[in-house]
């Protein structure tokens, strides 16, 4: 039965894909190899759509793959199965944390984890900026494929969002401006 298959497969992905949405993609290729309701070329489309729609990429992929298998009920089944393992685990950790929040060992651990996590976020910021703006890679000459339009948009937005008057603006304002600029100037 397709729903049982979806539940088992996406529960497994949810359980084993550690470290965020992109970690689900290798597992989806395994699914494509195993079942006939998902082909590798469909999967390429799914990833493209997941990246060009709102929502976490991992969730988008699961929703689309589930839809492919069994329509909207399939989409719901796949998505809920994907989040169930982490839901259970986080509920347990959260209970533990609220109990041991004042514990010295827990606080000591987090005192180093927080700056480390900040570094990780900065690293993901760098990856996004590099992919979208500078496009540096070891294969091309320095800045050879850098998109000057993207650099200008990047600089303008960075300055704009750091002007005191505009600091409190909703992040969505920047996203909207960037989308409009992207369409107008054919990024």
């Amino acid at each position: 039965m397709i729903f049982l298959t979806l539940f088992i497969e996406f529960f497994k992905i949810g359980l084993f894909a550690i470290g965020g949405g992109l970690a689900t993609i290798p597992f989806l290729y395994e699914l494509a190899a195993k079942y006939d309701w998902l082909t590798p070329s469909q999967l390429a489309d799914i990833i493209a759509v997941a990246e060009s729609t709102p929502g976490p990429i991992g969730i988008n992929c699961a929703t689309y793959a589930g839809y492919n298998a069994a329509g909207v009920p399939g989409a719901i089944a796949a998505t809920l199965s994907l989040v169930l393992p982490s839901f259970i685990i986080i509920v347990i950790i959260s209970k533990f944390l609220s109990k041991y929040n004042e514990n010295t060992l827990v606080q000591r651990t987090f005192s180093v984890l927080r700056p480390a996590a900040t570094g990780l976020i900065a690293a993901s910021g760098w990856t996004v900026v590099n992919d979208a703006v500078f496009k540096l890679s070891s294969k091309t000459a320095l800045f050879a494929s850098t998109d000057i339009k993207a650099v200008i948009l990047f600089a303008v937005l960075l300055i704009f969002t750091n002007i005191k008057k505009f600091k409190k603006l909703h992040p969505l304002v920047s996203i909207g401006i960037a989308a409009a600029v992207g369409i107008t100037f054919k990024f």
Partner: protein
Amino acid sequence: MEKKTNKTSLLNLYLAFARIGLFTFGGGYAMLPMLERECVDRYGWTTRDELLNYFAIGQCTPGVIAVNTATFIGMTERGLLGAAMTTLGVVTPSLVIISIIATLLSNFAHIAAVQHAFAGIRVAIGVLIINAVIKLIKQNKKNMLNAISIAICVLSFLTVVFFDLSPVFVVIAAAVVGLAFGKKEEDNK
């Protein structure tokens, strides 16, 4: 942070996370600016410090980080029911949007305007993440602006960017170092 007298409404939790899901573009940390906006600035459900804790845990537990963080905040606000609300909230936009696109626009990702718009949006996401990092460092002056914290932050950045090591490794290493050498904070505010 002021003490809350009223319980957070379940509907507010659901709607806030539906908004976060709707306005998250890209994976992982791309949602940080929206999370800060809704959960720290608007509702005061959590602090930037706690968000970092959740992210560090989310990095080395299974599942999508956006969902893990949603579950955490729902759980601390209203227990199991709150966690269910935030988790369902954050996945609802994906379910709706993807189902519509899959039904109506099978070549959605190949439409030129969509591609251009998202190329632009990715630039904005980069800017928003940079600003979020600056804010994290500034707002945690007491905890962050000492030499050791900065060294840890830079080291974890370099490890992932230049040595291509998994973030999971960074988190586990940081946890071990913290257990051994970390310091207890007198005041967590």
